[in-house]
């Protein structure tokens, strides 16, 4: 099993479906992170299932090349519970949104949490109904102006973390779409937890609710407006780690460190407390009064639903022998409904509803700022970069020769091509580091064929520069081959090239700003 799992790569998890989220939607970042993290978790692909309800986020299962179920509105948690009870070996992920799980599916969410079924729930919270074109949701703050609340909504919003804690959830965490490293850590922790893991992900809907979570994601603001929860550590935040949260009675207060305030005066986080009061208090730290906590609020052990159910099943069979479904159905009062007694056919009533006056007057113009020149650059084609030509070898080159070639020209990698010059693999210093170093291999006898990364992710010259950086910064690819339409390498992008490119962009700037 371990062998099967180790060969899984990000590419194996990418499906052939066209991704239909709006350009720039935060859902993309979550998908990318899931495809990055899952191969590291040692789960076989045939054991992974993604279950969703209805909403933008619920398209997720189509884009994962795993088993998936796109179910009924609000009922993903319910279907997932059945699945997990029937086959406890599966690794089940519920993908849902604030509409799906906190409106129509609110009840189902509460009960899956309370039952502690061993599955992972990711709630993409964009504080809006995206799929139905921008009505306020249960997490939209009061006063939110939308098509369905033209004068501002008058409803108290839900705090997803508080709801989960009140429903007795055993693992509760929060992360944000744009903090990719943090999201990866939280996804791993959620998988490791035995019991229901509930993860709220602040997700930007750039079409209907752009910027709802910018306080927690903007590079210049996030360190002062969020606090990272770390078990057994004091609550310290701020770009310079100079602020903290202290308790004054039962009320949290923000204090600056120094001037008599020491780290030991601050509230220390403990995610393992059985009493959820501490976690609940943290969940009430909200923007803008407090820095908003990101991380694991609560992680405690409790018996798992499906394990207890199957124990009872086994016990019943041991004590009373295998059951008989027919006998069960006929054991109590049963009766037959005679033919011809079906309900009266309902007459359909069509009533014209006047549409004038009910559609509020909301500015249709795209409220977002026009792209800056740097942003625009990320949409420019890769062909506008000055990329070095790659060094290509054939798959039967020995590792010794390959090392020689890399040393001679001081290269970080070689591209492996077939007879017609098409890209087949990449052989990088990283492969030497991971697969050769410390092992007793005959470098003259071993060919790069056995050690290279096969069919590596490559981009075309017409693809946008942003995608290069996507693969580099999210997936950590140091080298990305650029190929022509026939798959022949024409360039090689690397971390270093991108740094030189950036250095060049700012070359003429001498003083700040």
């Amino acid at each position, binding site marked *: 099993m371990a062998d099967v799992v180790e060969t899984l790569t990000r590419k194996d998890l990418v499906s052939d479906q066209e991704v239909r989220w709006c350009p720039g939607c935060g859902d993309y970042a979550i998908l990318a992170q899931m495809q990055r993290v899952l191969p590291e978790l040692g789960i076989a692909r045939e054991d992974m299932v993604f279950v969703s309800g209805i909403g933008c986020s619920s398209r997720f299962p189509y884009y994962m090349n795993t088993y998936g179920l796109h179910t009924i509105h609000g009922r993903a948690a319910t279907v997932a519970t059945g699945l997990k009870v029937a086959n406890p070996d599966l690794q089940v992920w519920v993908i849902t949104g604030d509409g799906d799980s906190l409106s129509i599916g609110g009840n189902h969410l509460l009960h899956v949490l309370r039952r502690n079924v061993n599955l992972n729930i990711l709630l993409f919270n964009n504080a809006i109904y995206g799929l139905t074109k921008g009505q306020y949701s249960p997490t939209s703050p009061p006063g939110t102006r939308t098509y369905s609340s033209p004068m501002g909504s008058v409803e108290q919003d839900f705090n997803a973390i508080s709801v989960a804690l009140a429903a007795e959830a055993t693992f509760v965490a929060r992360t944000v779409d744009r903090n990719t490293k943090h999201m990866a850590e939280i996804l791993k922790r959620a998988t490791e937890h035995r019991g229901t893991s509930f993860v709220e992900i602040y997700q930007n809907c750039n079409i209907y609710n752009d910027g709802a979570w910018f306080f927690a994601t903007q590079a210049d603001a996030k360190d002062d407006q969020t606090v990272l929860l770390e078990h057994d550590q004091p609550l310290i935040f701020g770009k310079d780690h100079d602020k903290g949260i202290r308790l004054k009675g039962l009320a949290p207060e923000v204090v600056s460190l120094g001037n008599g305030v020491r780290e030991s005066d601050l509230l220390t986080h403990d995610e393992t407390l059985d009493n959820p009061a501490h976690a609940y208090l943290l969940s009430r730290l909200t923007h803008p009064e407090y820095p908003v906590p990101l991380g694991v609020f609560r992680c405690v052990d409790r018996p798992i639903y499906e394990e207890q159910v199957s124990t009872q099943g086994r016990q019943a069979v041991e004590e009373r022998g295998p059951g008989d479904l027919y006998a069960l159905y006929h054991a109590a009062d049963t009766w037959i409904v005679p033919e011809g007694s079906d309900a009266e056919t309902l007459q359909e009533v069509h009533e014209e509803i006047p549409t004038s006056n009910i559609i509020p007057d909301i500015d249709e113009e795209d409220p977002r700022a026009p792209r800056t020149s740097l942003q625009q650059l990320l949409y420019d084609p890769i062909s506008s970069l000055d990329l070095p030509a790659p060094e290509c070898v054939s798959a039967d080159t020995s590792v010794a020769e390959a090392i020689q070639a890399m040393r001679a020209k001081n290269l970080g990698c070689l591209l492996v091509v077939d007879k017609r010059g098409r890209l087949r693999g990449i052989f990088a210093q990283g492969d030497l580091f991971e697969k050769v170093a410390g092992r007793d291999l005959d470098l003259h006898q071993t060919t790069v064929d056995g050690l290279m990364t096969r069919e590596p992710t490559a981009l075309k010259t017409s693809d946008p520069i942003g995608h290069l950086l996507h693969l580099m910064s999210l997936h950590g690819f140091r080298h990305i081959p650029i190929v022509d339409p026939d798959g022949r390498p024409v360039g090689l992008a690397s971390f270093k090239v991108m740094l030189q490119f950036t250095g060049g962009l700012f070359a003429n700037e001498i003083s*700040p700003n």
Partner: protein
Amino acid sequence: MNLSSSLHNDTVKHVDLSFYVEVEKDHPVGRVIAKMQASQRKCALVMNRGKLVGIFTAHDIARRVLGQTEVLCQPIEATMTPDPLTLQSDLTLIEAIRFMGDNPHRYMPVVDADGRVLGTLTHYAIIKYMSDHFPEEIYNLPPTPDHFAHARDGA
């Protein structure tokens, strides 16, 4: 959140400097490599009584270790690059980018004013820092560029 002003105002201590492991100068090369592989770090800072005395990277493995099994049981001291160049933690990122773009070294130890090691600056960490400024254009992309939706609303 303007990248240019961030790069001019933020310093190397504001990027993720955690991509390294620490080893002692008398550790055998094989053990150092195993530690690097286990934590997937391609850079080891070699220490002696809390002081940085050398650096050893994946690059050194490719250049000086592969094909020479006898090296594996020798102390790292003999194979590392001794007295490596270091960067000061108050170097601005724009200066760091210029430096790293021209510099042949992929990994640069970062020290504070008292000479204490804070971590290692890598190309990756700078790219990640810059990408963080453009989440919508860089992170929120489909798995492959041809899957890109060109209009709003995926419904």
